[in-house]
Each structure stands twice: as C-alpha cells, then as structure tokens.
C-alpha cells in the first residue's frame, strides 16, 4: 500500500514537471521555431532568366522595385501587371489604382513603357491573378514566367497558381521581394512583422482547408 502510494506520488511529480517544462522549453526556443515557421512560407525559386515577370497587386513598395531590378539586369524582357480591382465603395475618383502605382514605379526605375504589359480583366484576389496568367500563357505558348510577390506569400501563391495553371505551372517560378524592418528571423519582434506573418499563416491554413 505504502509502495503504491509512493509510486503514484512520483507519477504526479513527473507529470507536473513535464507540464511545467515543455512550455518553458517552447518559450526559450521560440526564435528557432518561429524562424522555422516563417521559412515554411518561403518557396522562392528564382531562375537565372525568364521571358516575363508578373508583379502581383499590393506591395507596391517592394514588388515593382524587385521587378525593375530584374529587368535592368537583363534577366527578363517583359513585365506583366494585372489590373487590380478595388471595391467601388472604397475608391475615390482621384485615387490612383494599384496597378497604375506599380506601373509608375517601374517607369521611374527605368523600365521602358513598351516592356510593361497591363493584363486585361480586373483582379480582386490572387485567384483572379492566376486565372489571368493562365489566359496569358495559353495565348503565348512556351513562355516562362516568374511571379513577384513578397517572400512570405510565395507558398500560398504557388499553391493557388499551380491549381489554376495545370501543366503550365512547370514554367512558372517565384521571386520573393524582401520587406523592410523585419524578416524570417525577426518578424515576431515588431507589430508590423507579427501581423504580416500571423495573417499569412492563417490564410495559408484556410487555403489548405479549402482544397
């Protein structure tokens, strides 16, 4: 009886030690697993050269600069810009649409106007952009394309584009544009980085659940 009482007491102490230790270990090792979680989101596979770059809507402070840099270094000859549609309730007459901001940044960086192609059909989501690219690639057989988006969005973007493009997805690559002030190893230390990565992890989970 006494032995059993001692054994069950030991078991309780071991359980308690385990319950207290693993959160502590998790907390102390958070830089490692938080960085790992962020690295999961990056599937960039930039090739040496592509026929076209496609700059996804949003991120006008990063993506067109990356696209312009690629063009000026001779790694591509054409930059595709999808037409971005915003809800009319949120748009002022005097507002400059996102695709026009991207186009102006490209021009200001030295990309010739003839090398920028505005894709028809308005897009309000990444899925719409994938559909527009699918149409473009069906009209331009054999063309290779690199999608320019922010590094943390590349995994979800790739999943969406692969679903739309089918066999054409083999000729599509992904270039990640870096963000200012935070990256995979520091995103949780500032609000902006935390919001970007936390939102993207949830969006990715939502996307996987909808497949």
């Amino acid at each position, binding site marked *: 009886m006494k032995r059993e009482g001692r054994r069950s007491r030991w078991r309780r102490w071991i359980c308690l030690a385990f319950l207290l230790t693993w959160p502590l270990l998790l907390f102390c090792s958070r830089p490692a697993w938080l960085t790992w979680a962020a690295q999961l989101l990056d599937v960039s596979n930039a090739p040496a050269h592509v026929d076209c770059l496609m700059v996804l809507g949003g991120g*006008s402070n990063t993506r067109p*600069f990356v696209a312009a840099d690629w063009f000026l270094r001779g790694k591509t000859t054409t930059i595709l810009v999808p037409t971005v549609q915003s809800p009319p309730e949120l748009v*002022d007459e005097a507002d*400059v649409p996102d695709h026009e901001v991207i186009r102006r*940044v490209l021009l200001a960086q030295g990309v010739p106007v003839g090398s920028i192609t505005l894709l028809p059909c308005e897009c309000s989501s990444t899925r719409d952009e994938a559909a527009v690219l699918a149409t473009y690639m069906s009209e331009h057989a054999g063309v290779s394309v690199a999608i320019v988006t922010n590094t943390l969005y590349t995994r979800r973007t790739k999943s969406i584009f692969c679903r739309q493009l089918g066999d054409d997805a083999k000729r599509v690559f992904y270039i990640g544009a870096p963000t*200012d002030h935070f990256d995979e190893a520091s995103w949780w230390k500032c609000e902006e980085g935390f919001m970007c990565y936390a939102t993207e992890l949830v969006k990715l989970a939502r996307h996987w659940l909808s497949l």
Partner: protein
Amino acid sequence: MAALVLLLVVCFKSQILTTLAAPLIVEGSASFSAPVVLLHQSKPFFDETAALYRAAIAPQILVIQKPLSRSELLGAYGPGDRSTVRLSLRGIPEELLANIWCKDRRAWAFATALRTWLIEHPRSRLILLCERFESRRARLILDRVLDAEDRDRAFVVPVRDPLFDETSWWKRKEGQLALFNNYTALIYSYFNGDSGSTESDLNPAEYRTLLRADK
C-alpha cells in the same frame, strides 16, 4: 445536450458572431466641435470628415502623415498631398487642414504625435477617426501614450466600413480578415506595447542595394 447546443448556435449564429466582434469596438460619436484627426487617408474617412465639416463639428482637420514610402518618394501617387486634394474635392477649404507628422511608420507613432499636439494646445480636444474594428486598440494606444490629464481630451470615433460591420463581418473575406487582424493587433499591442524599427523605409537606391546584396 450536444444537439441542443448545436441548434442554439445555428439559430443564434448572427447574434453570436456579432458579439464576437463587439469587444473590438469603442462606441463614440462626434457631438461637439473639435479638431478632427484622420488616422487613415481613404474614401470612408474623407466622406466622414466632410460630413463632420458640413455639420459644423470640424473647425480643423488634422491629417496624420508618416514619412514617405518608396513609391511615394518616386511620385507614383501623383502630385500634391492626397488628403488636401480629396478633402478639397469635398468642399473643405485648404486653410482648415494641418498635417501632424509622425517621425516613423510604427503603428503607435500617431499617438506620440498627438501627445505633442495636445501639450501644445492645452485647452483643445480631439476627435480621432479610426476604423470601427480598430477603435478599441486606438483607445488602448492613446491611454498608454497620452499623459493622464490629456486622455479625456482625445475622443475615439469609429468610422463605419462600407463593406461590413459587426453585424455582417463574417459574410465577406475583408470582414473576416479585419476581425482576425484587429484582434491580433489588439492582443499584441496589449502585451508588447510599442514595438518596431524607428528607422525610415529604405529609399529606392538603398532598396536596390539590398536586392543586389541578397544575390
């Protein structure tokens, strides 16, 4: 028992989801005359500001201005200040507008700028226009940054989003994202306070150097 709970959830789904969004909202209305502060420069905010001006509530409009982004530095948004142009189109005279400059682009920078303004205007009150789901967090930030005697002089007034509100947020992707983002930001702000880099964004040449260094 489980079936009953499920039935209740299904029957009262709207009420439950509305209650879920309620903690994010600090109700407030602009019923007195005071300078109006624009936290965001978008159509719903410009429309609300114009309405307050027409109702003789806004004797002055203060626009929160952050350091220019890379694309703004290149003039991608066109000439002239966006707020001045858009508020002028709504009949608000330019002389009523004033800029409140933030020294960096951190989320809490606006509160530091407003603190300075309130100290310089000891007898004035402010009406801060913010997004509806953001209002609780805006109040939290103001309470953390402003001096105790100044907190009662800054009023948070939420602006209704034309696409969704607390009674319909779950029907649209924008509403779902807004709920998640604002809860995450509120919790992060509550526990971490003001965080992030005080440096400006890299200018176009510096960003290009960063890209080339990455290769």
